[in-house]
Structures are given as C-alpha cells and as structure tokens.
C-alpha cells in the first residue's frame, strides 16, 4: 500500500515534472565546476559546465570568497579564458589563500547554484606544454646523435620570466609502444644517444614548475635516424646574383648526405636551347656555389638551373631555378667614400660626401646605371634618415648639428630591375663645433663688464643711497619765492607772509636792481601820446585790443584809484598795500601767480607812462627806488635805466624810458603821476610792465613764447580812466585791433598777453608768468602790473597781476606760489 502510494506519488511527481518539461520552462539545472587551473601560480582560471538551462536564457555568475571571509566577490573576468570560464588575473590571485567558488545559474524562473569548490592556487598549477620542438641528427665517427631542442611554454604575461621549468623528454621508435622517458632538467635541449640507425623515432617533451603538476606532453615529432646508407637529400638553390651585370653566381644548400660523402653538380640550360651545360666554375665563389663568367653569361635569356647531389647510394636533384641575369643584378656597395667639410657663405659648415661606384660596375659605358641612397644618424640616435641621392656620386648635407658625431652609410642599386647592394661600412663624421674665439671673447667681455657695472651700482647704492634716490627722483621743488618761508604759508600766518612777501626781504637787492635797470623798458616819446586823462580814444590809439587772452586774468591792472590809494597808503603801509595787492591779486581770478611776487610786491598799478609826464594823477606812481624795481627778468634790449617816468615831472628819474622804437613793445605807459612814488610806481609798474614784458622776453630769451624781444610792442596807454574803473586804456600802437597775441612767438609783436578785455577797451594784460623770482622791487607798493593791465575794471584790481601761468600758454612751470591759495584770510 505504501509502496503503491509511493509509486503513485512518484508517478505524479514525474508527471508534474514532465509537464513542466513539456512546457519547457523551469529553473535552470545545477552547473558544475569542471576544473580550475593555474598556469604559473600567479593567475588562474576556472571552467564550469552548465546544467540544463530550463528552456530559458540563462546567465551564469561565479561567486567566490576567500578562506573564511564572509565577503563574497564576483568573477573579475568572464571572457579571458573562453566561454563558461572565469579568469583571475594577478591582482585577484592570492596563492596563499583558499578560494571557495560557486557558480550560479539564473534564468527568469529561478536560479540554481553549484556545489562550492575549494581551490588552493598552489595545488592547481599546471603549465602548458613546451613548444617548438625540433630534432636533428648528427653523425660523427659513425655515431649518430639526435639533437632535440624546444622552447618553454609561452605565457600571456611575458614579463614574468622568473619561472623555472623542469623538463622531461620521452621518445620511442614509431612502431613500439613503450616510451623511454628522460629527465632533462632545466635546459631546453638535449642530446640523445643510443639510437638505432635506420629507425624512425617519435619524441615528446613536457615541463613542470617547482610546484604543481606536470604539463601535458608536447606534440609529437618524428625523426628518421639515418641508416648510413641512403641517397642524399635534395639540395636547394638559395639564390643567384650578378654583381655587375656581366657575370653571375649561384649558391645552393645541400640536404643531408645520407651517410656518405656527396657530390653536387650544377646543371643548366638556356632558354630556347636543349643543351644542358654544367657549371663552369665551382671554386671561385666558394663552397656550394657556381660562378658563371662573362663568356657563359647571356642576357635577356632565361637560365634553367638545377643541382644534383650524388653519393654512393644514389642521387637527388633539386628543383629547377629560372634566372634571367638582367633581373638579378645586385651591385657591391659604393667605395671611396670621402668627406669634406666646407664652409658656406655665412660661415655655416656643411658636409660634402663623395663616393665612387663599386669597382666592378661598368658605369662609364652606360651598361649599368646605378642609383645611390645614403642614410645617416647621429651616433647615439636610433633611427636612420635615408636620403635618396639618385645617380650622382656626391651629396651636400647642410643640416648637421655641430659638435655631434654622425654615422653615414651608402648603398646603390641598378636603376632598373635589380636589388640594393649591401650598405657600405659605417663612416663616422665629427662635425666641428662652430666655435669662434671672437664670439667667446665678446661674451666674456660683456659678462665681465656687466658684473662690474652691477658691483659699482650696488656699491653706490649702498653708500649713497639717499643721494642716488634724490638724483633719480628729484624732490618736487617748493616755491621759490625768495624770502618766502613755506612754513609760514602752511601755517597761514598771513601777516608774516605778507611781510615776507612784501617789503622787507622781498624786494630784491642789488642784483634785482641791476636787472631792472637792464631790462627796464622805457617807452619812447612817441608812445607818449597817450593822454591818460583826457585824451579821447580818438587819438590814434587803439584802445586796447579787446581781445583777451584766453587764460587771462590775473594780472589786472589796478585801478588807478585803488592804486593811488594804495600807493599813498602803501608807503605807509606797505603791508596794507600788499594786502591789497594780495587781495587784488587774489581777486583776480586765478591769478597766475607767477607774477605774484612781482605783482604783489610791487604795487604795480598799471601804470603807463610815457615820456611825457602823464598825469595820471590817480595813478600811483610806482615807486621806483632804484633798487626797488621789480625784478623782472629783463632781457630786453632796453637798457634799463631807472625806471623813469617819462614825465618830466617825475623827480625820480624815470626809469622807464619810453621804449625804444626798436622794441616797440606795446607798452602801456601811463603818465606818471606826480608823485614820485606814484611815478615810481608807475614806473615801476611800467617798468615792471616792461619788465614783465621784458621778463617775459627775458625769460624766454631763447624763445619768448609770445614775444620777440625785439619786437616788443607796447601798448600805449591811451587813457586812464579813473572813474569807476580804473582802467588804462591802451593805445594800440601798431596793430589795430590786434591785441597782443601772445601765442605767436616771435612773429607777433605783441608783448604781453592780454588776459581779458574789459569793457571793450580795457585790456588786461598778462605778463608772462615765467618771471620767477624777479623780485619785484621791494617797493611796498609795487604791484605787479603787466604792462598794462587794464584794470580789470574791477576794483579789486589793485594790482596788475602778472598773470603767470595761465597766461602763458606754454609751459609755465609755476614755481610761483599762488598767493591766492593762501590768501583767503585777506579776503
């Protein structure tokens, strides 16, 4: 019952299984690991055999773990050893560990894994069989030996050469069954003795590493031991060559001689002929060769050549060899290779290589035409550079490095139908270094000089560092007003400043005076037409040119009234005047200070004076102490005398003399006033004007920017109005309406710059600012007046300011202080 039950159960199970089988889909069968093997103990592979695949595509994965580790890895390489294999490379192989390997087969339905395999790498080592087994029999003294040679099994990783194989060799006669095994050791060759003659043997070899198993036996090799009595083997013709297209030689290689001395004979026949000839000369070309001399060489015919080996037992004939001599020409290498070093035009050396054709080749008759090719490389180099030269027998090589050694070789070939000769023996070339003594000397000198210079410079730097710095980067100069203390300015002590500016130290001393004297312009009497007070402009005075100088401004003439006031006061209060002056200056817009000094110092009122005594009563005469003349750099030709007011009234000898015609500087001259002081002032002024003018001129003795010294034009003061605006009307002497244009250096006769034109008839002139320290006369009341500053029609013009810098369009390096900048207090 039970059995029946069991059997029925089995039947049912089988039915189920078959049903499953019929539908063809089930989980895969269990794979089995067939084998694991290592070739050299560093890598190994495992192969498995799949189970049934359950009808569906199945994937196989190999998992392994090491020793007792928990971690499971997957196969690193499924491809290297083929299908269904896993290859463990060096990085994954540890000979000291045991691997536990399982293969899992997976398909859509399920998976199945194999039994685990325990793999110890050292135990599965089995190399491949040796390869290249070659056998050779040698007979000497009636004893025949067998020489066997082979190579170790090839490894994928060639670098691991450290494997030492032990070899075994086994052989047996072909018909026999038993092998004779010989242990060879680590060599890869072996000499076998004790062989039976006339017997055919079979030989095999195998190897083993220090651990593991023996490899398989290599493939079999058969060898026939010569019996000592057999006809020779077939010889083979190696090659035939003609060195000069007139003779040729053939070489052959004999086969085994079959135990007896063998004779070789060469037989040939020509194309189209039946007759067979024998080699005419066996000796000339050496053993196993045949030399055909000229008589026996025909061209454009094909030779049929064979070699026969004969011994006592029989003979054997080689295969026929067909030869047309025209196509087998291989010349000798060229000879007489000479080198010559030549220098080209630009001193670069180049090499001229010459050679001769090989001696045997008859190039002269044109029978054989050779082409040459040479190759060279640097001695240490690896690659040859080949140059085809053609039929010429010389070559120029330009691009060689000096100082290097080169190796050169040449070979040749017939121009058609032939082969290249051997390379000529190596030729060494040493390129001389292009070492010019002169160059080296120059470089040495340069080096020494530069080092000297460096030394000197560093020494001077160390010693006189500060001075050097000062030399290289000169400090910015401060103001150069004599008598002015910058510190005073900074501290803003105006009074002291003014004092400094003003009377005391300011007016220059004798030298200034000299200058003044020298440069004082005095207007001519002609210029004295100006009627300060009453004249109408109708008199040919051009009033002051209207135009103004663009950068006008500053020097404004003081209003006469102011001036006079100031003058009067100035004496007493030079300071005050100064103040005023200063102020005026200041108020003058942007008085370019260059004239500050003079201006301020001298209350220059625009005083024009002419020779006649003009009576600009209100004009404060510029006081003209002789030595208080404003120091304007005069370089005018005017001999500066004292500034004499032209007016005779003036006691003071007018310094200002009417300017000479020659100068013709437009110089506003005001009538001097009655006052000495005034006059002086005027004069001063005028003088200063002149001086300014002059100064300007002077200053640019070389090139007065706007003034040609000789062409000083003076604008005559036409009228001086003292009413609301003290203005000095200038009579333009020469040019109508043309104002001083200063910008025309040398060409214009302008003298001063007009800074502004006020009221269309007031010309504010600007002196050239370059007048540096011309110390204005210390006249307290010195005001700088440009020559005619027409008052700017402003009260504040109490001075003529010499408009310095901005006047001059040119440079005006203003070394002058700008009093306005520190004058605020005076406002």
């Amino acid at each position, binding site marked *: 019952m039970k059995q029946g039950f069991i059997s029925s159960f089995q039947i049912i199970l089988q039915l189920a299984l078959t049903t499953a089988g019929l539908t063809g889909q089930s989980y895969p069968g269990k794979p089995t690991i067939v084998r694991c093997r290592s070739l050299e103990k560093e890598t190994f592979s495992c192969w498995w055999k799949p189970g049934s695949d359950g009808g569906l595509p199945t994937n196989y994965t190999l998992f392994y773990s090491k020793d007792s580790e928990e971690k499971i890895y997957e196969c690193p390489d499924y491809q290297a050893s083929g299908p269904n294999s896993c290859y463990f490379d060096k990085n994954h192989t540890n000979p000291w560990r045991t691997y536990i390997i399982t293969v899992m087969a997976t398909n859509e339905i399920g998976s199945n894994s194999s039994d685990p395999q325990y793999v110890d790498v050292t135990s599965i080592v089995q190399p491949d069989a040796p390869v290249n087994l070659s056998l050779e029999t040698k007979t000497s003294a009636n004893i025949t030996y067998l020489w066997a040679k082979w190579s170790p099994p090839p490894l994928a990783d060639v670098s691991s050469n450290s494997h030492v194989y032990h070899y075994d060799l086994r052989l047996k006669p072909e018909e026999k069954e038993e092998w004779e095994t010989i242990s060879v050791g680590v060599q890869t060759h072996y000499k076998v003795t004790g062989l039976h003659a006339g017997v055919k043997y079979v030989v095999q070899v195998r190897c083993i590493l220090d651990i593991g198993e023996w490899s398989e036996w290599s493939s079999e090799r058969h060898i026939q031991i010569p019996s000592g009595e057999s006809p020779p083997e077939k010889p083979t013709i190696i090659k035939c060559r003609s060195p000069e297209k007139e003779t040729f030689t053939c070489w052959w290689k004999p086969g085994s001689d079959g135990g007896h001395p063998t004779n070789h004979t060469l037989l040939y026949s020509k194309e189209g002929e039946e007759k067979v000839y024998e080699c005419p000369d066996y000796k000339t070309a050496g053993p196993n060769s045949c030399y055909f001399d*000229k008589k026996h*060489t025909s061209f454009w015919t094909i030779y049929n050549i064979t070699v026969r080996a004969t011994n006592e037992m029989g003979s054997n004939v080689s295969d026929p060899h067909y030869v047309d001599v025209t196509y087998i020409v291989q010349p000798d290498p060229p000879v007489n290779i000479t080198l010559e070093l030549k220098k080209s035009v630009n001193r670069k050396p180049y090499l001229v290589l010459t050679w001769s054709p090989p001696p045997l080749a008859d190039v002269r008759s044109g029978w054989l035409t050779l082409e040459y090719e040479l190759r060279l490389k640097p001695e240490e180099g690896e690659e040859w550079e080949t140059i085809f030269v053609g039929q010429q027998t010389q070559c120029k090589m330009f691009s060689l490095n000096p100082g290097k050694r080169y190796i050169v070789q040449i070979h040749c070939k017939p121009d058609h139908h032939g082969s290249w000769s051997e390379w000529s023996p190596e030729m060494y070339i040493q390129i001389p270094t292009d070492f010019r003594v002169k160059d080296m000397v120059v470089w040495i000198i340069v080096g020494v000089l530069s080092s000297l210079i460096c030394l000197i410079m560093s020494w001077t730097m160390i010693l006189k560092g500060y001075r050097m710095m000062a030399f290289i980067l000169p400090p910015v100069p401060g103001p150069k007003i004599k008598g002015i203390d910058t510190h005073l300015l900074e501290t803003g002590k105006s009074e002291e400043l003014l004092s400094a500016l003003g009377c005391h130290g300011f007016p220059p001393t004798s030298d200034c005076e000299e200058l003044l004297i020298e440069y004082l312009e005095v207007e001519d009497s002609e210029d004295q037409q100006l009627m300060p007070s009453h004249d109408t402009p109708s008199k040919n005075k051009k009033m002051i040119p209207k135009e103004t100088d663009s950068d006008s401004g500053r020097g404004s003439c003081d209003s006469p009234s102011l001036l006079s006031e100031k003058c009067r006061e100035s004496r007493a209060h030079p300071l005050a005047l100064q103040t005023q002056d200063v102020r005026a200056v200041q108020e003058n817009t942007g008085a370019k200070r260059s004239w500050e000094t003079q201006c301020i110092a001298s209350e220059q009122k625009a005083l024009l004076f002419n020779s006649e005594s003009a009576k600009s009563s209100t004009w404060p005469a510029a006081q003209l102490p002789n030595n208080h003349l404003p120091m304007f750099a005069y370089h005018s030709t005017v001999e500066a005398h004292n500034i004499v007011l032209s007016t005779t009234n003036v006691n003071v000898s007018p310094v200002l003399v009417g300017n000479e015609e020659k100068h013709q500087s437009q110089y506003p001259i005001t009538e001097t006033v009655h006052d000495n002081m005034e006059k002086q002032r005027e004069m001063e002024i005028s003088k200063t004007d002149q001086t300014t003018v002059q100064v300007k001129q002077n200053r640019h003795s070389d090139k007065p920017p706007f003034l040609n010294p000789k062409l000083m034009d003076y604008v005559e003061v036409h009228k001086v109005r003292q009413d609301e605006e003290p203005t000095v009307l200038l009579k333009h002497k020469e040019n109508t309406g043309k104002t001083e244009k200063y910008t025309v250096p040398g060409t214009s006769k302008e003298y001063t710059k007009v800074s502004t034109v006020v009221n269309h008839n007031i010309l504010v002139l600007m002196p050239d600012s370059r007048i540096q320290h011309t110390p204005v006369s210390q006249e307290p009341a010195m005001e700088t007046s440009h020559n005619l500053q027409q008052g700017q029609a402003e009260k504040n013009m109490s001075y003529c300011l010499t408009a310095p810098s901005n006047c001059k369009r040119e440079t005006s390096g203003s070394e002058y202080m700008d009093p306005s900048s520190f004058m605020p207090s005076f406002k």
Partner: protein
Amino acid sequence: CHTSGMLTPNGKEYAQKIPREELTHLILKLLQAWKEPLSHFNQHIEHHQELPDDSLSKAKQISNMVHELKTGVEKVTEKARFLMYNSLNGMASSEGTGLSISNEANMMSDSDFIHCFRRDSNKVQSYLKILKCRIMPENSC
C-alpha cells in the same frame, strides 16, 4: 617572343663592338616591331573588365611612349646622320616583316606578351644607354 628572331647582342661586349649605326638601326627595328602588337594589345585588354582602370591607361601610356621613343630616336639619328640610305631601306623592308611578326604576337598569351615586352624594352634601354655614353661620354657616364 616574336622578336626572338632578331639578332641582338646579348652581352656588353657584343653591344659595344657593334658600330653605332647598326645599334641604332637595331633599336629602331625593335621599337618598330612593337608598335603594332602594342596597339592590338591595348584593344584587347579594353575588353577585360577585371583589370583596374589604371592598367588600361598605363598600357596606353606605354604605347605612346614607345611611339614617341621611336620618333625621338629617328630624329636623333637623322641629325647625326647615322642612318644611311640603305638602312632606311632596310627599315622599310622590315615593315613588311613586322606585320608577320605582329601576327605572331597576337597569338601570345597576355603574360607572355608582357614578359616579352619587358625584356625588349630593357634591351632597348641598355642599347640606348650604351649609345649615349658612346656619343656623349661626359654626361654621367
């Protein structure tokens, strides 16, 4: 080869011994002998589709070159007055034999044809070079 019947020196000494006029004559004869066969050959291979295109053009080129060479040699010899009257006559007569020769040539297989042509062109080249160095020895001889 159809030109095998021609007696040509087959060595350097023989070629050098022959007087120049005869050598020239020989060259011209050879060139003449190939004129017809070459044109026939060109026509023949045009029908061969399996040949690459440049072979056809090369063959045409070669025929042209042979013709030009012949013309050139004739010109040179005229100038140098090598050819004597009888030689010229000889040339004319060889025209006739040339025809029969070319018939022979048509029966050759292509490879033989090419082989023969190669050999004969080599002959012509060698003879010409010898001639050149004989006439003008200074030019690279």
